C-alpha cells in the first residue's frame, strides 16, 4: 500500500469535519483538545493515510499539507534494487 502522511495546522483548523467525511481511509477524527480559537481540531488517528489529497482539497482553511511516498518506489517499473 502506498504510504502517505498529513500535517494538519491545528492553529487554523475550525473543526468543520469536511475532511473527515472526505477521507476514504477514515483516518481522521476530531481531537478532544481545543485550539486557541476554541475549535476542536482534526488529527490523524490511524496510520493508514495513502496521501490521496482528498482532505486537503475540501479543507476550507487550506490547513492540510499532504505527503506521499515518492512515485518510482510505488511502481515496479524501476527494478534496480
Amino acid at each position: 500500500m502506498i504510504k502517505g502522511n498529513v500535517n494538519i495546522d491545528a492553529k487554523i483548523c475550525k473543526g468543520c469535519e469536511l475532511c473527515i467525511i472526505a477521507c476514504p481511509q477514515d483516518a481522521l477524527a476530531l481531537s478532544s483538545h481545543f485550539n486557541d480559537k476554541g475549535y476542536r481540531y482534526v488529527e490523524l488517528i490511524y496510520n493508514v493515510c495513502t496521501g490521496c489529497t482528498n482532505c486537503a482539497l475540501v479543507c476550507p482553511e487550506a490547513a492540510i499539507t499532504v505527503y506521499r511516498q515518492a512515485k518510482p518506489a510505488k511502481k515496479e517499473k524501476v527494478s534496480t534494487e
Partner: protein
Amino acid sequence: MSEKLYLEEPEVELEEVYCRPTEALYDIPFHYCPGCGHSVVHRLLMEVVEELGIQEETIGVAPVGCSVFAYHYMNVDMQEAAHGRASAVATGIKRVLPDKYVFTYQGDGDLAAIGTAETIHTVNRGENILMVFINNGIYGMTGGQMAPTTLPGQVTSTSPYGRDVSMVGAPLKMTELIANLPGAYYVTRQSVHNPNAVRKLKKALTKSFQYQKLKKGTCFVEVVSNCPSGWKMTPVESIKYIEEYMFPLYPVGDIKVPKE
C-alpha cells in the same frame, strides 16, 4: 493489519504532494465560518494563478458580501467595487489593461440581485474577463435573508415559512440566463461539495484563465456552495443539503463550451 505493515517496512521517503499556495495566498487564517465554500474557491483561484505563473498579471475585483475581504487573502492586485458593480469595474480595468488577466469574484446577492444589470450587460458586450459566481442561495453576510437564488420552500430569516414561489417568483438561474447571450464564451456550473467536484472546479478555473488570452468573450463559472451558518446546519449537513436539494435545481456541468 496496516499498522503492522507500517512497522515492518523500512522508513520510506515521503514527498510533499499538496500544500497551501505559498506565493499567491497570504499566510493568514480565513475569517469565514467553519465549512464555508468561499475559502475553498479563494484557495483554488490562487492555486491556479500560481500554477499558471500569472500572479503579476492578474487583477481581481472583490465584491460586497461575505467575500468583501477577498483582498486580505489574495496576493494579487485587487480592487474593491461598489455592491454588484464588480463586473462594471472589471470592464474598465480590462479595457485599460487588455493584457492583464482580470477576474471578478461575486456572491449571489451581489451578482444575481443588485448587480443583475451589470452582469448581463458585461456578458452581452463579451468582455474578456472571468466571472466567478458563488451561489449559496442566501445572503450570508447580513444574516441569512432570502436571495433570488433561494430554493422554493427554503426557510430563511425573511421567508420563515419557506420561499413562496407564487409571491416572490422562482429562483433565478443566472448561469442559464447568461449562456444564451452571444458574448459568453465559456459558461459552466461547478461545485465544492466533495474532492472530485473541487478537482473539476480547478480545471474549469484553469481553462477560464487560459481562454482570456484568446479574447473571445466572457468566461463565467458558477460554484454551487454552502452556507452552514445561514442555513442553520452543521457543515456536514450542509454538504448533504447541497446534494439533495441544490443539485436538482442547479445541475452541475458545462452549459456553454467553445466550439472547436
